[in-house]
């Protein structure tokens, strides 16, 4: 449970215990001192007084006896006065003793003294009476002889009382000394206990303090390290943010310049759109004229296609004629061969005919070759005609498509005119919007400047935080070293 106490509570509890022990020590010391003082007072005030009174009582008794003896010897009255004064002094001392004695034994001894004094006084009275009579000296001497044991008994009683008081005084001294010794011993024990407890408390508090401070210092070190790391990251982030803010400022400046360019461009677009609107009107007229020209081209193309088709038909007819010629040439060739064969069978007379037949064959071969060339040429012509027809038809279709395109172009130009008007209006609106945008961008630029300043201040703050964290880490390190060294000591 003590382990969970705070250091303040522990110190407070330790000091409370110390104060308690000190108060107990002081109380015991006061009590012992009072006890010793009481013993001393009793010793000095009662026993010593009793002893003094006892001795005075003895002296009074002696004076009383001396006055008696003086009277007996000299028969002078002042001895009787002296005896009476001594008796009064004795009585006074006795009363004081009776008041001061507090033990039964003392009272018994006082009673013995009083009884011996009474007997001795009574005897003295009888002796004095005898002395005053005739022959009083002898009688007195005789009685004196009787009084001696009584006087000695009184003296013995007084001595016993004195011894008793002396013993009481000695006992009081010893008791006072014993009480003082006991108080000293108790005080020494309490002092030792207090010192030991104070030492234990100091060691315990020191260890507890070192432990708690060490743990706290470790936490501080860990926290300072984390704070240092965070400050580093914050510093790096602040630097990056500052760099980014600079880039943003540059970008916004460029954006501002771009917005100005856009505003100028929008104005130029508006002018160009107006010019485009005029050009679109002129283009519409030009397209109408071009459309008429293309319709004329279309009619010419139709005529060309018709002629080319006619040319293809003629080429086909030529091919048919060539087939006939080729067939004739082939048959002529066969005839020439057969003529040659027949001429060979006709002997010598047929040789000349064979020559003629051979020449006819050659002519037929040449005709056949020529017809092949013509066929090749006619085929090429037909292919060219077909290609031309296809190209012309494609051109005709292109012309038709062109006419449709021109219609589309006309519509497109009208749409362009409408769009250009819209574009002009839009360009004006763009110019106006761009001016407003420029104003907004300038405000943004100002705001970003303030943000950049704040970022630089944050960077400075983070740098200062980093320095503080570093100093805190150093301080915690030093404190840890101090605490550990003390703990080691």
């Amino acid at each position: 449970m003590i382990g969970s106490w705070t250091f303040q509570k522990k110190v407070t509890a330790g000091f409370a215990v110390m104060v308690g022990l000190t108060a107990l020590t002081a109380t015991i010391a006061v009590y012992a001192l009072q006890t010793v003082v009481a013993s001393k007072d009793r010793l000095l005030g009662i026993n010593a007084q009793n002893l003094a009174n006892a001795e005075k009582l003895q002296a009074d008794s002696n004076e009383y006896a001396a006055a008696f003896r003086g009277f007996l010897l000299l028969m002078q009255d002042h001895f009787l006065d002296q005896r009476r004064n001594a008796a009064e002094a004795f009585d006074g001392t006795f009363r004081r003793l009776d008041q001061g004695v507090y033990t039964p034994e003392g009272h018994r001894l006082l009673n013995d003294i009083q009884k011996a004094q009474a007997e001795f006084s009574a005897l003295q009275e009888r002796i004095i009476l005898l002395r005053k009579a005739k022959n009083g000296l002898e009688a007195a001497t005789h009685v004196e002889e009787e009084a001696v044991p009584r006087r000695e008994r009184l003296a013995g009683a007084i001595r016993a009382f004195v011894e008793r008081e002396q013993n009481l005084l000695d006992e009081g001294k010893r008791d006072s000394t014993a009480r003082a010794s006991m108080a000293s011993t108790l005080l020494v024990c309490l002092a030792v206990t207090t010192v030991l407890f104070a030492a234990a408390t100091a060691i315990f508090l020191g260890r507890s303090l070192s432990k708690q401070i060490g743990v706290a210092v470790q936490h501080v070190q860990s926290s300072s390290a984390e704070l240092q790391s965070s400050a580093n990251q914050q510093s790096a982030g602040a630097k990056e943010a500052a760099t980014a803010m600079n880039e943003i400022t540059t970008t916004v400046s460029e954006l501002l310049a771009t917005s100005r360019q856009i505003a100028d461009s929008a104005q130029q677009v508006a002018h160009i759109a107006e010019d485009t609107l005029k050009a679109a009107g002129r283009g519409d007229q030009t397209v109408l004229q071009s459309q008429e020209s293309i319709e004329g081209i279309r009619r010419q193309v139709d005529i060309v296609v018709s002629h080319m088709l006619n040319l293809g038909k003629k080429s086909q007819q030529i091919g048919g004629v060539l087939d006939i010629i080729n067939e004739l040439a082939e048959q002529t060739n066969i005839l020439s061969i057969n003529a040659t064969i027949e001429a060979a069978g006709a002997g010598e007379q047929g040789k000349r005919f064979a020559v003629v037949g051979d020449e006819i064959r050659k002519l037929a071969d040449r005709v056949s070759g020529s017809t092949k060339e013509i066929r090749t040429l006619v085929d090429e012509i037909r292919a060219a005609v077909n290609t031309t027809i296809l190209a012309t038809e494609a051109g005709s279709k292109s012309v038709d498509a062109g006419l449709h395109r021109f219609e589309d172009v006309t519509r497109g130009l009208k749409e362009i005119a409408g769009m250009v008007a819209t574009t002009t209006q839009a360009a004006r609106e763009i110019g106006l919007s761009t001016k407003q945008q420029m104003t907004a961008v300038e405000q943004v630029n100002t705001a970003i400047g303030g943000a950049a300043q704040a970022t630089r201040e944050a960077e400075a703050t983070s740098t200062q935080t980093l320095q503080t964290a570093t100093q805190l880490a150093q301080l915690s390190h030093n404190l840890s070293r101090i605490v550990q060294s003390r703990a080691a000591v």
Partner: protein
Amino acid sequence: MSTEGHALEQLRSAFDETFAVPFRSREDQESVIQIRVGSEPFAVRPGHIAGLVKSRKIVPVPSRIPELLGASALRGSLIPVYDLAAMLGIPPGVTGPTWLILAPGDPPIGLAFDGFEGRQVPEWFSDEQGERQYVRQLVRIGSAVRAVLDIPGLAEAIRRRAGLAEPAKERKQ
């Protein structure tokens, strides 16, 4: 002068030169007829045939001779027509035979073939007989060498198989 005019002039000159050369100078210039049997080219000497005919209708007739295609009318008489490719052991052509060579005889024998490729004067003759049957000579035409078919031998073989064989006559070379 244009190309056509130049060709016309050459044609006229060649025609005129024909009549300027003596007949005797032509005796050794015997030509051959180039034909195609199936897909193979051959040559035939004009002196070995009785005629060349194109596109005659051939009427199939039953026969024990598989090479006999049928009969055809020629100059008022019927002649047997044999497949020359089958006689030579050559695979037939795609379109079928459309030409006839008439082997001399009474009646003449028609040998059908696939194509007539003209008449040329060969550079030389060789009497080496080829590996193929009924080939008697070889001629060079241009850069090609062609086998000359032995038409009389073919006609004689056909007649023997048809049972019309005559005593052997000495053939003119």
